[in-house]
């Protein structure tokens, strides 16, 4: 039977957010799109286990996350493309961030342990509550909270930000000075 149009629309509506999540997890836009495609196929194949009235987006995030985890375990020993292809694929970026700052952020994010990274993204960017993120990651709410806190602390550490004044345009000035100083 063809997919119920309402369910199909709900699935498609979740795609942009699923892609953003997948890119944040994998750091690679091609892998991310493959993950989203696989997620859609699994969601369609298992649509009977979706409970009507519950959050379709959260359900699909759970599928994608599980797919990524099993793939990650397989690829563990391969070299991760952490700051390469996705950073390069970014042609535009929000005006408020300098390009360098944005890339530094992406690189720092890629250095977080996967547990912390996914928790931070789900809560800090995808807009899920701690409870929803805990359901997606199949863990306790307290665990999500502590992962998010550790992720923030580690990011601040990696980016050496102690206050907002350290996170402005000075970042690029400092990089130029550092590059010049060593040259």
């Amino acid at each position: 039977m063809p997919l119920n149009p309402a369910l199909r629309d709900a699935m498609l509506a979740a795609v942009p957010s699923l892609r953003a999540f997948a890119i944040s997890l994998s750091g690679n836009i091609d892998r991310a799109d493959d993950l989203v495609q696989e997620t859609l196929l699994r969601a369609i194949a298992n649509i009977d286990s979706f409970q009507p009235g519950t959050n379709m987006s959260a359900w699909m995030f759970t599928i994608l996350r599980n797919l990524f985890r099993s793939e990650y375990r397989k690829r563990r020993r391969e070299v991760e493309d952490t700051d390469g292809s996705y950073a390069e694929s970014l042609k535009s970026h929000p005006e408020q961030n300098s390009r360098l700052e944005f890339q530094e952020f992406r690189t720092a994010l890629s250095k977080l342990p996967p547990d912390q990274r996914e928790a931070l993204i789900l809560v800090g960017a995808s807009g899920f509550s701690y409870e929803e993120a805990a359901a997606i990651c199949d863990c306790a709410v307290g665990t999500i909270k502590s992962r998010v806190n550790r992720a923030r602390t580690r990011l601040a550490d990696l980016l050496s930000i102690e206050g907002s004044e350290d996170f402005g345009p000075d970042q690029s000035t400092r990089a130029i000075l550092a590059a010049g100083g060593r040259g």
Partner: protein
Amino acid sequence: MQMDMNQRKPRGRLGRDVQSKIGQQLRAMYDNVLSEGVPDRFNDMLRQLDERKEADQDKGTA
């Protein structure tokens, strides 16, 4: 004489400004992707699946 409150930072706790900067960067990265919408490949894939299922159904009930 007044103490400079900014000089002492509680350990293990991030200031609000740092948290908001991190949040800003996260959402900027995310919004960048969201603004691309749904790529054609996903719309096409769902349409093809529907067409195939309809064709299967026609055959099945014949």
